[in-house]
């Protein structure tokens, strides 16, 4: 057990996997000699060599394509997209090749694609996005999004061990802000939701960086008992945990940092409407980033990203309903 930041937990998971399993390789832009844009792979080349820690051209399609080929012949590649936003260049390889390989040819594609995602640091429209819903929509790809250091390590181990392509959404805003006790070893965090704080009057459903926002916003909400459910995994979506929370609380606020339309929360809301209807005691409320690019301007960015105040307001409003 060690106290690690979210970023150190991801580094530790990669290092443990590289040490434990020779099939594991990591590849991406500037991840080798430079140690990665966020220093996740700092020092890896010295320990594991350039054959297992590969600097690639600036070509996301090539990174994912190579990883697919390597995976099909038995490797366990972990690709880093320098920013999650850049994955649009590798979309076809991931969605059409990796996602459908097993369906077409019964071949497993055990790749993990790491996506440093999210805003909050004035990165502007090309470095702040949350593209997870694009991959939720596409069959054959799992999508996970940890909110704590322990889950970052455990979900990354589970992603690398999983025989399917997995998008690992690691939130940049959490990298050095979130810190926690992390068990040693190759432990796996299951692809299920986690009750971050139990409650009974209302549940806020969130994942990634929005879990912190939800916890802060509802820590003391006029004495109301507010549950926070951390989804952790978006595909598969933990329907049982979601419906359990809805049955307990009957009022639901769903929080997304991604743009509102068709975000992960939209799927959660649809699930609740279909299977949790008889447990609802109010409208299902969504809080998300409006359908706009993320602005560079710090005040404008703060205005569009869901913050503590917006969540508080939404919760108070629904509690009073």
């Amino acid at each position: 057990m060690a106290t690690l930041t979210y970023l150190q937990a991801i580094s530790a998971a990669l290092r443990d996997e590289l040490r434990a399993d020779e099939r594991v390789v990591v590849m991406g832009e500037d991840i080798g000699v430079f140690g990665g844009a966020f220093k996740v792979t700092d020092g890896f080349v010295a320990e594991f060599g350039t054959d297992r820690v590969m600097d690639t051209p600036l070509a996301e399609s090539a990174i994912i394509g190579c990883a697919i080929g390597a995976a099909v012949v038995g490797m366990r590649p972990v690709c880093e997209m320098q920013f999650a936003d850049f994955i649009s260049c590798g979309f076809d390889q991931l969605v059409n090749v990796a996602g459908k390989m097993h369906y077409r040819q019964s071949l497993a594609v055990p790749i993990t694609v790491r996506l440093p995602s999210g805003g909050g640091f004035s990165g502007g429209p090309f470095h702040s996005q949350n593209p997870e819903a694009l991959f939720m929509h596409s069959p054959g790809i799992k999508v996970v999004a940890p909110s704590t250091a322990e889950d970052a390590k455990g979900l990354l181990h589970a992603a690398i061990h999983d025989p399917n392509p997995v998008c690992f959404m690691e939130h940049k805003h959490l990298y050095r802000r979130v810190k926690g006790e992390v068990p040693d070893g190759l432990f796996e965090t299951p692809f299920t939701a986690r009750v971050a704080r139990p409650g009974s009057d209302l549940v806020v459903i969130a994942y990634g960086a929005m879990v912190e926002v939800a916890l802060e916003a509802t820590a003391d909400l006029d004495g109301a008992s507010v549950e926070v459910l951390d989804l952790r995994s978006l595909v598969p979506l933990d329907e049982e945990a979601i419906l359990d929370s809805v049955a307990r609380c009957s009022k639901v606020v769903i929080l997304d940092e991604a743009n509102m339309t068709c975000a992960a929360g939209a799927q959660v809301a649809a699930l609740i409407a279909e299977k949790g209807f008889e447990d609802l005691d109010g409208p299902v409320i969504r809080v998300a980033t409006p359908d706009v690019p993320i602005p560079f301007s710090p005040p404008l960015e703060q205005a569009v990203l869901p913050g503590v105040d917006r969540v508080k307001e939404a919760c108070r409003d629904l509690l009073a309903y």
Partner: protein
Amino acid sequence: MTSSRTEILVDVTMPQMGVSVAEGTVLAWRAGVGDTIEAEQTICEISTDKIDTEVPAPVSGVVAEILVDVDQTVSVGTVMARIAAQGGPSDGDGDGDAPSQPPAPSAEAPAPRAEAPSPARTHAPGRRYSPVVARIAAEHDIDLSTIAGTGRGGRVRKQDVLAVVTGNGHGAPSGEDPPLHIESPYRPDPPAAAGTAAGVADGGLSRMRRTIGERMKQSLETAATCTTWIEVDMGRVEASRGALKVTALAFVARATIDALREHPALNAWLNGDDYTRVEDVNLGIAVSLGEDGLIVPVIHRAHELSVEGLGARIRDLARRARARELAADDVLGGTFTITNPGQYGSIMATPIINQPQVGILDLEAVVKRPVVVTDGDGNDSIAIRPMTILGMSWDHRALDGALAAQFLATLKRRLETVGL
């Protein structure tokens, strides 16, 4: 369970119907003291300037007080009435313990659920219940109409029905009818005879007619009204308007704006001796409301709009005017007005100036006439042209006839060179 209920008095205030509206007049009360009223149901009718509208009740409840008489004018925000909304008790609402006693989801649950597909049986008219409340009520055979809700607007929340199930409810059903509202000893006066057939035969004009009448009379008494006409060949407008899918009025509006920019003395207000030229052209467009009267919504900053933009705004304002959806600001701030009653074939009129403006343009029918046209070499011939007579009434206190004629000449030149 005889815990006391709290009665919450909710104010009904004179609404803000536009940024520049400061007061409104109560036209009629639709509910009297002691009447039960539903949220959003109209409680009274009010009027500001030319806009009449209805005020919805903010909550369901019983009208407890009416503080403003009919025809009384009060400022925005003034409390006009109070509604006693039914609330729950003021002590703890049992949130904490309710979830520890969820309704048993086991064995017996499916049966009542299956045989109770008609939740309406347990529902009071006008109240709606969330799925979880309806389900718990059906499972436990609870008459929801007997439960006082603690949610917004008296809504029955899950906590409220669970409190009844677990027996510690503040809104437990009892044999007697619960006091759904507090009866007031006061009764409203019998409604005035307004709106009855006798009232109309009595010569009573509608409020809008009275307002129009007062305004028109006041304008004629105030302004030194003159009217000047000019003949305009609308051939180019007629040729262009099909392509843009707008009416001739939109072209005349655009040309009027351009002419006002050339002759800004006409884009002005005259209040007594106080003459103000206005920078923006806020163009009023008279819209007939049939027998009810006439209203002049204003296209603010009309000079920023193209012909198509003006056409779209005119359509929008006319539609909203006829649907009685205009906001108070939509009829304020006009600097010049166009009236366009030519659809029935009339060719000339002497419009009355919309005070405190100094001019009003009248567009009548476009009629094909034989006219003398002169070609580039100076040869005259007779041609059939779509002609109209534009008339402008103007205030001789603010300007003289020469300027009015120059303005009309500019307007004519612009309309006859549309698209050139």
